[in-house]
């Protein structure tokens, strides 16, 4: 994005909403900010209608604060709770349909590469577990097979939340949910493993209970997708509303699940991606010294 683009046309200063003005004067564009800087800049995310205490909303807030180049990022979403939030996010984002996000992202990324051969345009897919592992799995995996240079982030809230709490492929085995009246019969789909086998150069699982780590993972995933290959991040953020937990307990529940070993923080980096990230790190240190 050219620097001058995000400004207010002369004469409109007094009618622009306050939060927009703040984005112009103190937004994150071109500033290399991250989770550690939260509270010091105007975030991309605006007031939104997701439930109080929603772990998915927290995850999104952290993800958006971790984009390495928000000024050149386009997000592709999918139908679900998160799509109600994306309309209030200050990077361009596409909501097309339920499940087609990785196909849309494929076309988008290719068009942007043709139109801006000398610029990096990050295309980041952010979609629910149902969108990613159930209805859209075909297109998610095919984009990995084709080695499309996009980052796929799953918001794993373990349920079809937006439609009122039905079983998804990511629901825990045994969970009694709508459309699983006798309890879910099979375990959570092991998509990280599938992602690795399907050609992702970077795969990680993380949760918003570890905000800094989440920021690092998202950043690495997006960087790897610039040059090396597709990347996949699975964010564990169970839905308090549908699992009927008091919203203040969500992060504790996540920590408990991690302690019990049911949820594991994992990272896979292909040797090529490892070398690439190490190279970027050296460059960065070099820049800092200068």
């Amino acid at each position: 994005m050219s620097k001058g683009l995000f400004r207010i046309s002369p004469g409109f200063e007094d009618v622009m909403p306050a939060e927009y003005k703040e984005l112009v004067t103190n937004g994150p564009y071109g500033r290399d900010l991250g989770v550690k800087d939260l509270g010091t800049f105007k975030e991309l995310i605006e007031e939104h209608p997701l439930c109080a205490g929603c772990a998915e909303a927290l995850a999104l807030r952290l993800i958006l604060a971790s984009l390495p180049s928000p000024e050149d990022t386009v997000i592709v979403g999918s139908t679900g709770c998160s799509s109600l939030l994306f309309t209030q996010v200050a990077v361009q984002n596409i909501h097309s349909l339920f499940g087609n996000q990785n196909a849309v992202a494929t076309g988008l990324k290719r068009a942007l590469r043709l139109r801006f051969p000398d610029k990096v345009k990050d295309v980041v897919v952010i979609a629910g577990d149902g969108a990613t592992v159930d209805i859209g799995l075909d297109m998610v995996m095919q984009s990995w097979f084709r080695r499309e240079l996009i980052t796929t982030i799953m918001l794993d809230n373990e349920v079809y939340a937006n439609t009122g709490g039905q079983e998804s492929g990511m629901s825990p085995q045994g969970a009694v949910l709508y459309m699983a009246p006798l309890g879910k019969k099979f375990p959570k789909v092991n998509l990280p493993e599938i992602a690795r086998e399907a050609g992702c150069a970077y795969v990680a699982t993380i949760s918003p209970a570890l905000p800094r780590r989440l920021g690092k993972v998202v950043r690495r995933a997006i960087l790897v997708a610039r040059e090396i290959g597709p990347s996949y991040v699975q964010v564990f953020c169970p839905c308090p509303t549908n699992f009927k937990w008091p919203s203040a307990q969500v992060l504790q529940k996540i920590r408990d699940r991690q302690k019990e070993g049911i949820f594991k923080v994992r990272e896979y980096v292909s040797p090529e991606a490892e070398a690439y990230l190490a190279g970027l790190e050296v460059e960065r240190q070099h820049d800092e010294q200068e």
Partner: protein
Amino acid sequence: MDPEYLFSEAPRRQVFITGSEAVAEAVKRANVDIAIAYPITPQSESMHLVGDLYDQGYLKDYYRGENEFAVMAAVHGASLGGGRVFTATSGPGTLRAMEMFPVWAGSRQPVVCAFMCRGVSLPPSIQPENIEMAMLLDVGMLMFHAEDAQDFLDMILKAYAVAEQPDVHLPVGVFADGFFVTHTRSAVLLPPDDLKLAAYDPRRAPVPTFDMETPPIRLVRDPLLNKSNFISYAANASWHQEIAAAAERARKHIRRYMGGLLEVEDPAAVVFLAASGTAVSQSREAIKVLRAEGIRVGLIKIMSIRPFPVREIEAVTAHADLIVVPEFNIGGWLAREIKAAIDNNRRVVGGPRVFGGMTMPTELIVNEVRNALSRPGTRQPGMRAGI
């Protein structure tokens, strides 16, 4: 370059090619950025040839998608990113992709898609049949129906010119009846090889391109979707109306580039055959036979199905006693459209209808006209002029 020069003025040379080859000749001159393909008979050959064009450098990107829904989603993404796109499909592929077509229209993308119509599995058939067009009538895209390979070539090229007008900016489906058009050779007049449409300029689009270069970056302040109130319903409805209005505004561009939404032969006749696609060619043959028998029959060739030439049909048929509508599908969607467009629609006879791969012998049309004329109370046309 002025597209009109390419369409009508540039000297053309005659070649003897299939409809699939005609599609590729159109794409070659359309300055397409990205084409995405998925195989299905009778569409495949054309997209193989488009792949060859990619190999020859006429396109910047091309790949085989995973299924038609994904292909239509990917061309949607590429178009949102500011690329000019092309794809094509047939029958079951059209139905598999169905959910995407209103999305193209809803997001005002000038996607051009060719449809090589075929049966859709009731029961299975790969043969020519255009029932899929009935299912697309209200998805919001413009629809042109080609009679032959020449039309197919011209309509695909002109589709880009119409689709990309800033006051239109809608998807266009260009339809041809599979096999009859795609797999037979005919004489086609080709514009010069070195002429092509000017590149698509996303800055002329009435909606922002998703490239983080085109404002607005923050798209909406208050989300409409999650508010259940009259204002948000009305905002949604007004977007629908704007899409319909954009299709209306396409009429003038269709007239300019295609010479009209329909063509009429022998407008003074009182009996007409009204058809689109291959049924037009068959109607031409039937008219020759009927004339030889002393029965004068005019022809209405409908080229634009969406927008539909309601006023034109009304005007052409104002003095007509009988309008016979032959079709390559069981539903009779074109007859329904014409019946809804005109007064005194008992004048419209829907038939003959063939499907499941049947051809439409001239005799079938001739008999339909003869039978209709023998209905009690129908004026006999003879060879006299209209009223």
